[in-house]
């Protein structure tokens, strides 16, 4: 059985999207992406280094023809900054599928939902296909979907915190209410967290720090691949009900 998922009409097998920040070097980054099995990688858009233009480029190590680059707007605190960044990203890469995040404050990196919604509306009018980082609020998620977000990406915990999925109830509510893919974006710390997100019915998980800051990022990338697959299979299989007390697995009849 092939279990694919689609976003904005594009079909993928891997449900793990990985970031490309915080790695020791491009070699480690490329090896981790390979081990993760990801087909989509997030990337940032930044000024070229004019004082040292000969530096190696991300595109030389992670091939944009092999992986779908998902440009993000990390570091943008207004709709205007985010839109400006994505217009440049579209010109640099030539594609419309983007990750929108408009942050509210540096301390929590929580999204500013008023600006996020406004940016979503403008980007959609300009032909972008925004996958949107957002709060774990089912109403906000619905409003984003109505505005044209092609995927809803609520946080499971603050960006880079590694605290795991702190909001199972609201993530589940968003999954139930959404007609576009839902991906947990931010908060995963270790493999079991990714499984939790998938068991809640999410279509995928996006992570960066959990892999990049592991002692062995390449091994953790593989762990995340398996955890996402395991969580997805468990969701499809349908978990058993929970009981308050024990229920023996061996038959009671025929005891000696």
């Amino acid at each position, binding site marked *: 059985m092939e279990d694919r998922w689609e976003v904005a009409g594009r079909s993928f097998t891997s449900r793990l999207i990985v970031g490309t920040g915080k790695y020791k070097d491009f070699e480690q980054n490329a090896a981790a992406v390979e081990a993760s099995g990801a087909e989509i990688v997030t990337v940032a*858009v930044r000024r070229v280094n*004019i004082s040292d233009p000969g530096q190696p480029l991300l595109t030389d190590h992670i091939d944009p023809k092999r992986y779908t680059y998902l440009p993000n707007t990390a570091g943008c605190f207004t709709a205007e900054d985010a839109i400006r960044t994505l217009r440049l990203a579209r010109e*640099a890469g030539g594609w419309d599928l983007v990750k929108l995040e408009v942050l509210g404050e540096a301390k929590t990196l929580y999204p500013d939902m008023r600006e996020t919604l406004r940016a979503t509306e403008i980007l959609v009018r300009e032909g972008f296909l925004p996958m949107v980082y957002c709060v774990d609020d089912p109403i906000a998620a619905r409003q984003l979907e109505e505005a044209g977000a092609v995927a809803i990406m609520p946080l499971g915990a603050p960006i880079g915190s590694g605290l795991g999925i702190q909001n199972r109830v609201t993530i589940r509510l968003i999954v139930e209410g959404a007609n576009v893919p839902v991906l947990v974006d931010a908060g995963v710390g270790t493999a079991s967290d990714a499984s939790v997100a998938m068991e809640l019915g999410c279509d995928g998980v996006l992570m960066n720090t959990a892999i990049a800051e592991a002692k062995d990022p390449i091994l953790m990338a593989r762990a995340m691949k398996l955890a996402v697959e395991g969580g997805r299979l468990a969701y499809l299989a349908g978990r058993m009900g929970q009981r308050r007390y024990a229920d023996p697995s061996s038959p009671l009849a025929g005891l000696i």
Partner: protein
Amino acid sequence: MIQDGTLSIRVNGEHRRVRDGLTIADLALELGLEPTKVAVERNLEIVPRSTLGEVRVEDGDEFEIVTFVGGG
């Protein structure tokens, strides 16, 4: 433009003087950049990559030249 035939521009926030008559693609190459690997904004307007070899740098232009880097 001042008398010596150079233009005063800003690239990624830094002031520069360049000679007159350059296209944006020429400017990128002079900066050591591969024009096909960057995106250029000129005075807050995107310059389509297909026109980088045609649009001329003018005195007072402000450029942002960006590329993809690692990010989450």
